[in-house]
């Protein structure tokens, strides 16, 4: 089994940070305020960010507050620019993101989430902007040696040390990390790393939370009109916290925003940004009708999208990876694991 010592890992990451763009978990001032409804324990007060050097990396992190989604699917990005010259003629230019990004320390759940985004965005016709950025992204996974209090990856078909969807998987062992090279892309990245062979290395079994049953498709369909969903929706504020911390959500808004220049020319940016199906007017149509005017209809839509709509429309089994961020972020403590368990037991209010 391949092994990399901590010093060798740091050295290798240092090279990657210099030569390319390295994204890693960093300590972030988020969820520090104990009064906040989203107060986070120390291990979760981190985010993925671009690092210039390894001293910025937060090694003791458990799960980041925001997922790594923003590095393959940015919170906002320019899709096109449209230049208007003095005569009013327009030219459209696609915005290409040439950056090569290596995301170090991505947890198996977050990597699996990128797999879900791939299934949606790369399905024909592929979203070209996403596809190009995804091709230029490497994922160095970091296995979890335990599940934390709101994690439930094992209940949705994942695991804390899953080898899926990453290019390399590191597992923390004594003095360093076991290195599992999974793809050619990962192999190519390791060229500058100093690896050892440790044939007797035994990987630790992660400490698991008790898994629960997720309802099958027919239960979802049968329950669609159940008053249970109205009740969940009652307390929902229709904010976007769950959607924005979620690693698999991908609804987006596109707008053209134009800025006039003093020389008489104009530049228009076609901007894509994250959007949320929880907004009151999200599903309103031009004439004013709105099939999801009630909060319960919208919260229902989110759960169904994760567990039914995306699985039947795209090539993926389930669109929730059990990271638990929405449980932490929801200001009114709507708990997806509670909803799933209620549904599985058909214990409806």
């Amino acid at each position, binding site marked *: 089994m391949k092994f990399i010592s901590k010093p060798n890992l740091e050295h290798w990451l240092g090279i990657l940070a210099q030569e390319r763009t390295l994204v890693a978990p960093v300590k*972030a*001032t*988020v*969820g*520090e*305020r*104990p*009064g*906040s*409804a*989203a*107060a986070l324990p120390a291990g979760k007060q981190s985010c993925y960010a671009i690092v210039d050097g390894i001293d910025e990396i937060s090694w003791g992190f458990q799960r980041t*507050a*925001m997922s790594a989604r923003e590095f393959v699917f*940015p*919170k*906002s990005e320019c899709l096109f620019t449209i230049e208007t010259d003095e005569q009013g003629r327009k030219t459209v230019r696609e915005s290409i993101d040439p950056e090569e990004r290596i995301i170090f320390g991505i947890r198996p759940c977050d990597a699996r989430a990128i797999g879900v985004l791939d299934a949606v965005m790369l399905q024909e016709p592929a979203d070209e902007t996403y596809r190009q950025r995804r091709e230029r992204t490497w994922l160095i996974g970091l296995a979890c040696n335990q599940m934390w*209090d*709101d994690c439930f990856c094992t209940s949705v078909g994942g695991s804390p040390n899953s080898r899926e969807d990453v290019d390399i998987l590191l597992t923390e062992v004594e003095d360093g990390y076991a290195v599992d090279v999974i793809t050619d892309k990962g192999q190519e990245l390791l060229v500058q790393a100093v690896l050892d062979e440790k044939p007797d290395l035994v990987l630790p079994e992660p400490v698991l939370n008790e898994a629960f049953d997720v309802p099958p498709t027919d239960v979802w369909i049968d329950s669609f009109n159940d008053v249970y969903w109205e*009740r969940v929706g*009652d*307390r929902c*504020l*229709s*904010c*976007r*916290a769950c*959607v*924005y*911390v979620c690693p698999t959500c991908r609804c987006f*808004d596109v*707008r053209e*925003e134009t800025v006039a220049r003093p020389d008489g020319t104009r530049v228009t*940016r076609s*901007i894509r*940004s*994250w959007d*949320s199906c929880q*907004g*009151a*007017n999200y599903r309103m149509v031009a004439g004013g009708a*709105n099939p999801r*005017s*009630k*909060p319960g209809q919208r919260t229902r839509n989110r759960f169904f999208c994760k567990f039914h709509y995306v699985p039947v429309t795209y090539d993926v089994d389930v669109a929730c990876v059990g990271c638990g961020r929405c*449980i*932490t*972020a929801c*200001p*009114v*403590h*709507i*708990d997806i694991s*509670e909803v799933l368990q209620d549904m599985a037991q058909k214990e409806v209010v």
Partner: protein
Amino acid sequence: MIEELRTKARELLTDGTVDCVIGYEIAPRGDVRPVFIYDPAEVDRLVFNSRCDHNLVTYLNRRNKPPKRGAPVPTTGIVVKPCDAKSIQVLLNEHQVDRDKVTIIGVACAGMVDATGAPETRCTHCLQRTPLLYDVLLGDPPESVDAADSFDDIEEFDALPPEERRAFWLRELNRCIRCYACRQACPGCFCDVCESERDDSLWIGIADDIPEKAFFHITRAFHLAGRCVECNACELVCPMGIPLSLLNRKIVEEIEHSMGGFRAGISDEPTPLVTKLTGEEEINEVHK
């Protein structure tokens, strides 16, 4: 007091005074969260303790505007602390809530505490132990309370040099993800289409850059001028831990100092920053 609360809720639901009682319950993981009780048999879910820090009045905005036109406005019982009751007063002053449709279950409050057990900062500024507005009052107000109505924290921050304050806000607001939890949790934010969500990006675009984020929060703070009751719901719900109370309370202080001591939600006067129409004005044009 909890027994009294449950008894009252059971009574209001059973005799049909209200369709629903909005209060607090303990969620399976142990956190306090809002609960909507429709069935008198479920009133035992209701609790009240020093972790009940949500301002439930935001739900009244939604209850008072049924999505289907012409549908009747439901009746609601709502558990309110003194700060929350001020929110109801603001909504009454702005004709957003029908007083006849709300039964206000006021609770005496010794202040809320955070997850570590320390008193919430906002409660250390609050001298109100019982709500000013209620149909029924539960619990005994504590004899004395360790609080002082002061803007010391605002003044301390104001004393910092401008560059430092600017750097602070740019850093803090940069963490904003525009999830709008602050806006949705605020009873004073009830616009059908928020200025920051207009399709035409007239005021704020959708880019995830600091100008947009800063402008959203500053605009929201200004739109709450003379209307913010300092319930701190915005800061409590922020998943990114942004100190929004500093911003909103700065404006509360400005209004108090410049508008003859005005504080929102204390009387039936709406914010002094609006023009009150008497109904006798001749309005020649309605701008769509």
